């Protein structure tokens, strides 16, 4: 199952911040159920998109030597619902990174207006859970995510025209 909840990166500043984009398309299956005749992007999937943006930022900062997993979301708030046809921008900044994990702050913007915020905590599994064994299949840093990262690196310098 595809589990990538961002469409691509617009900006990527290694170890500092990243901005990704998610277009809410009616082609996505979940709108049929969430909700019938009233398609709303599930808040949990928005948080997943923010976490993937921040997770790849944290992973890349250590050249993916660590397995980055979403540890917890301490706070999250949204000012409204988001529906099909809208374009969400996820802006995530790394607040703190060290061998055992990282914290990040994320924002959801629509047309430049902040409509949601979240505080995200990531754990580096190899450091924090070194005595446990996990398979690669548990992680989102698959080939598909690496492809997005390549896009992110190409995005590299900020592009004002895309903001």
């Amino acid at each position, binding site marked *: 199952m595809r589990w990538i909840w961002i469409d691509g990166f617009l900006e990527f500043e290694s170890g500092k911040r990243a901005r990704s984009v998610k277009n809410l398309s009616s082609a996505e299956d979940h709108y049929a159920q969430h909700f019938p005749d009233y398609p709303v992007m599930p808040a949990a999937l928005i948080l997943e998109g923010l976490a993937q943006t921040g997770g790849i930022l944290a992973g890349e900062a250590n050249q993916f030597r660590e397995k980055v997993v979403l540890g*917890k979301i*301490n706070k999250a708030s949204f000012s409204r619902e988001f529906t099909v046809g809208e374009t969400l921008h996820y802006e995530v900044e790394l607040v*703190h990174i*060290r061998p055992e*994990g990282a914290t990040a702050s994320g924002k959801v913007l629509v047309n430049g207006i902040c409509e949601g915020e979240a505080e995200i*905590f990531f754990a580096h599994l190899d450091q924090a859970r070194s*005595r446990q064994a996990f398979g690669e299949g548990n992680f989102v840093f698959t080939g598909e995510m690496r492809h997005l990262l390549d896009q992110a690196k190409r995005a590299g310098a900020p592009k004002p025209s895309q903001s």
Partner: protein
Amino acid sequence: MASHEEVLSKVSSTLVEALNIDEDEINPESTLTGDLGAESIDFLDIVFRLEREFGIKIPREELFPEAAQTSDVELLKDGKYTPKGLAELKKGMPFADFSEFEKNPEASQLTNLFTVNMIARFVQDKLAKAGKA
């Protein structure tokens, strides 16, 4: 110079933020897991926040000593710390109050050593060594 009360107050605020609890739920003797509901992932988050709040570095093994995670039967046998294991623990956790724990040193009760006061004493020592308290 930060007094113990000042450090305790900032540690309490940090825990309130990290664990999303109300200020009136916390007191100096609260245990992080039993009373405040902290899970293992929260400990890492708390360490990060303390580092930011106090401008200190907290290596993982300083707060969670190797003896606390041991599988050495000389230190931990049948789920209980041996006298040698208890001595190692005390050496690794000089800021913890062992008076209750040592009566029945079961590994499952180890997390009860992590109280708000214990964290504050640990932080104050770090600050003193860094010349900040």
